[in-house]
Each structure stands twice: as structure tokens, then as C-alpha cells.
């Protein structure tokens, strides 16, 4: 046992991001495409989001749908479906009130999120566990990953890039939401309290026009991105169809994590003994046990 551990350590130095085998102490050499051989629970095997994030997602998710339904029907008020949707919310004046209430929920969820993120980060910094690689902050690697991934999609690469907890798609989406929420909330406040905001903005006429433009435009951008991209990522694309349960369980399936968040999976292997046992068993079953060592 001690010799093999030594062996892995020496092999580790030679490993690159492109290596097929990744040696993990106490497990063995894990081939990059092991996700094709593991068994996963559709409801999720490995931790991904804390309960706070799940609650925040749920709040924003419900508020977003209500905001979209009431907001879109107000924006496109002259189209036939606008009246039907407004009717569901008990008439225009009620729908406008509902829009404001849902906005309040959205703002509350956003504040809740910022508090958890800032608190969590501070906690990690103090415990000296803060690692920029695990955050949503974009790095040059993300760009490389994107290029690598596109190559993989076109068959020019054999395997997907080894990515962290948040891959390029999620970082793009997260930053877009940060920006979008900021714009929507500030424009929304300008529209909701025009008298008060007129005293704050340097040029009330311009900023009111800007708010009208930005609120609608950002909202439409958000809705189309959510419906066509976010939903296709979590509902439609192969492996996620018909539903990815992460938003409720906070857990991700094993095959998904190994495929798209390989580096995060390695962290999990380090931290979760049961997962190490499971992986060892799979490697043995599939005959990968000796391969890494023999290289």
C-alpha cells in the first residue's frame, strides 16, 4: 500500500490537464471517461448547493415566473394574450400589484444571496480555505475550457476539459444574472418611484427613458435566456432530460459531475470516504484498477 501511494505521488508530477488517467491517493488511477461507467441516482449523488442556495433559487424561480408573466403582459399590452394572462392575476391593477410584490421577493432573495456569498467567502478567507478556482470569478482557464469544449463537440478533442465546480457556462450565466438583477432592480425602482428618483438622478427625463428602455430590454433578455438556454441546459440536453433535480435536492448526479466538473469531483473524492470506496469498487469492476499503475 505504501509503495503504491509513493508511486501515485511521483506520477502526479507528470500529470497534465490532458492526461487520460488521474491518480487519486487511496483510490487509484481514474480514467477521464469514467463517467460512462459509473451508476448515478437521478435525484443526485454528490453535494453541489447548500440549502441556502436551494431556497434562493426557489424564491427567484417563483418570483421570476410571476414577474415575467405580469411584466410581459404589461409590456406587450396590446397583444391578445396579454389580457388573458392579466385576467389570471385578477385584472391589470392587481397584476401590477402582484408584479411589485414578486419584485420585493426577488430583491429579498438577491439580498439573501449576497449575504450568504459574502458571509461564506469571509468565513473561508478567515479559515484560509479560500480558493479562487472554486468561485464564480472568471479566469483565463474558462476561455481555454470553452475552446477545448467546442473542439470536443466537433470531435477534435477526445474528452471534455477538466473543469471546476463552476464551468464557463455557469460563470457566464451567473455574471449575466448579477448585472441583469442590478439593472432590473435599479430601473424598476426608477419606474416605481418616479417622483423620488427624479430628485436623485442628475437628468430625470433621460434616466426615466433609460429606465423604461433598460427594464424592458433586460427583462426580455433574461426571459429568453432562461427559457431557451437555461431550461435547455437543465431540461432538454442529453442526460438532463426531462429534469435535473439539483434545484430541489442540491445534489448533482455522479456522471454529470465527473463529466463537467471533474476537478470538483476530485475534491469530493478527497473529502468523502464513501465516494472513494465507490470509485475504487467501480475501477475494480471495470478493470481500470491496474492500468494507471502500469503506465
Amino acid at each position, binding site marked *: 500500500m505504501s509503495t503504491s501511494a509513493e508511486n501515485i505521488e511521483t506520477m502526479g508530477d507528470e500529470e497534465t490537464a490532458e492526461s487520460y488517467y488521474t491518480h487519486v491517493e487511496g483510490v487509484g488511477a481514474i480514467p477521464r471517461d469514467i463517467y460512462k461507467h459509473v*451508476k*448515478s*441516482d*437521478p*435525484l443526485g*449523488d*454528490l*453535494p453541489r448547493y447548500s440549502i441556502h442556495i436551494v431556497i434562493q433559487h426557489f424564491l427567484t424561480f417563483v418570483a421570476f415566473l410571476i414577474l415575467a408573466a405580469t411584466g410581459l403582459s404589461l409590456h*406587450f399590452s396590446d*397583444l391578445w*394574450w396579454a389580457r388573458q394572462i392579466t385576467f389570471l392575476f385578477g385584472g391589470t391593477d392587481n397584476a401590477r400589484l402582484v408584479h411589485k410584490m414578486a419584485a420585493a421577493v426577488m430583491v429579498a432573495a438577491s439580498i439573501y444571496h449576497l449575504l450568504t456569498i459574502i458571509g461564506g467567502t469571509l468565513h473561508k478567507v478567515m479559515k484560509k480555505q479560500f480558493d479562487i478556482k472554486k468561485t464564480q470569478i472568471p479566469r483565463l482557464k474558462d476561455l481555454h475550457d470553452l475552446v477545448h469544449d467546442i473542439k470536443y463537440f466537433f470531435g477534435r478533442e477526445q474528452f471534455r476539459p477538466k473543469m471546476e465546480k463552476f464551468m464557463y457556462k455557469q460563470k457566464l450565466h451567473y455574471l449575466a444574472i448579477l448585472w441583469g438583477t442590478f439593472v432590473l432592480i435599479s430601473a424598476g425602482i426608477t419606474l416605481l418611484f418616479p417622483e423620488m428618483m427624479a430628485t436623485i438622478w442628475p437628468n430625470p427625463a433621460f434616466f426615466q427613458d433609460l429606465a423604461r428602455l433598460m427594464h424592458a430590454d433586460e427583462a426580455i433578455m433574461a*426571459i*429568453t435566456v432562461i*427559457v*431557451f438556454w437555461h*431550461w435547455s441546459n437543465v*431540461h432538454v440536453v442529453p442526460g438532463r*432530460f*426531462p*429534469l435535473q433535480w439539483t434545484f430541489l435536492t442540491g445534489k448533482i448526479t*455522479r456522471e454529470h459531475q465527473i463529466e463537467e466538473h471533474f476537478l470538483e469531483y476530485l475534491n*469530493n473524492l478527497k473529502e*468523502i470516504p*464513501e*465516494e472513494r*470506496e*465507490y470509485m475504487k469498487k467501480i475501477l475494480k469492476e471495470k478493470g481500470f484498477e491496474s492500468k494507471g499503475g502500469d503506465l
Partner: protein
Amino acid sequence: MPGEPKRLDHPKIVLLIAFVFIIITLAVLGAVLYHLTFSHHGPAILVPFQKKMEEKKRSAILEDVKRQEEYEKHRHFHNVVEYPTLPGKELTVCFICHSDYPHSKNKKVRALLNMHTQFFVCETCHIQEKKGYEIVYKWYNPLEKEPKGPFFGTSYDPETGNLVPVKDQFSRIAPYFKSGDTLLSAIQHQESDLAQDYMRVRDQLTPVQRENVKKKFHVSTKPKGHECKVCHSKKGLLDFRKLGFAENRIVDLEQLNIAGMITKYEKFYIPNLFK
């Protein structure tokens, strides 16, 4: 928890959730397509084509008629109510050529005569008697086999003295030929063979031929309708009681409360209508 997975397949409810999401997605997709193609909010890619198609269908006459009707709504101060109209094929054959304001020649009374079209079909006034047949009059509704009423104009509201508003908007008094126990309707529909045939060949006829056909159409009609007194008198042509009119209404109809009016117009008829 990590380790051996507990379940290997989705719980069944996934289908329901996924269904909801797919429906919303399709709805948004539809909205986006509409936005891109026809909506005036978006780039309206297909609108030029749509306009071209509409341009072909445009009719100057139709537009003018609509404009005039719109204008009339503003000109008419007294809250015009638009009543439901019968589908075209349910109208009698007369309406192929005549409008629902058919009388126009006699300036003094044309509006009064037109007013009566609410109560009976053309044939009630303009029918030619057939030998060997007795004519009886009944309420007739093209959309109902045996109309039961209440019919408009048959009774007054005791509180206001106004005529009682009714649901039945289509029933009118119509003549029937009676032979023994059988009643034969004296009205001809636009669906009748002759009318259908005329509609089909109308465009192929020369103006003279058309006049000929029209003459034939009017063989069984009387150009001059009944005079007022024929009905608006005691024991007149129509048995108001049998037709379901209330007693006080019958009195008004038989006397026509402005007595001078009916005597003044005793001679009215439509002299030039079929010239």
C-alpha cells in the same frame, strides 16, 4: 448520500414537471416566432408579405361603407344598439337584391314601412293569394322550429309602459297556405333551388336577361303591399290575439294612437318600386 446510488430511475412525477416546462417553453417559442414575424413590436419580417396579400383583397367600396357606418355612429346621438343579425342563408330570398331597408321610393313613409320589417317577413304584406288556399299567419323563426316567444312588441311593461325587451330577436310573423290540416310555408329561402341557381349564374346574365329573371321572381308577389288599415283596425288581417299580443297592446295596434296619421296616409303604397 454519496456511494451506491439508491435509485437508478427518475420518479414518475418528473413527467408532470417536465410537461409543464415544455408547455411554457413552447408558449414562449410561439411568442418569439410571432414577435419576429408579425408583431409590430418586433422586426416584423413577414408583415410586408401580409400587407401585399391584404392589398389584393382591399375593396374601396367595403372601406367606404365601413367609414360611413363609423361616421353614422357619431352622428347618431341616441346610443345605437347593434342587434344580432341572421346568417345570410336564413334570410328570405328577397334579401339577395333588397336591403333590410327595402322601401325607398315614397319619401314620407319609407322609414315607417321599413320599420315593419322587424315584425314580419316581406311575404306577409306582398304575397299574391293562391286560389283554393286560405292564408294563415304564424310566428316564424328560421333558427327555431316552433318559436314560443315571448315575441317583441306583443306586450308592455306595466311599470314603465315600454315594450318588454325579449331574448328572441329573430321571430317574425309569416304567412302559410292552409290546405286542410297541412300548413305550407309561403316564404322562399336563399337556399331554395331557384335562388341558388340565380346566385350561380347572376354574373353571366346581361342586364336585360337579369331584368327578365327578376320579373319571374316577382310573379308570386304583389308590388303594392297592404294598406295600414288592413291590419291596423278591428278584425284586421292579423289575428293579434291569436298571435299572442296582450290586450292593451292590441288596442293600440288597432287604433294606432295618432288617429290622424293613419287617415292621412290611407293611400300610401309603393307606386314605382317594380318599374
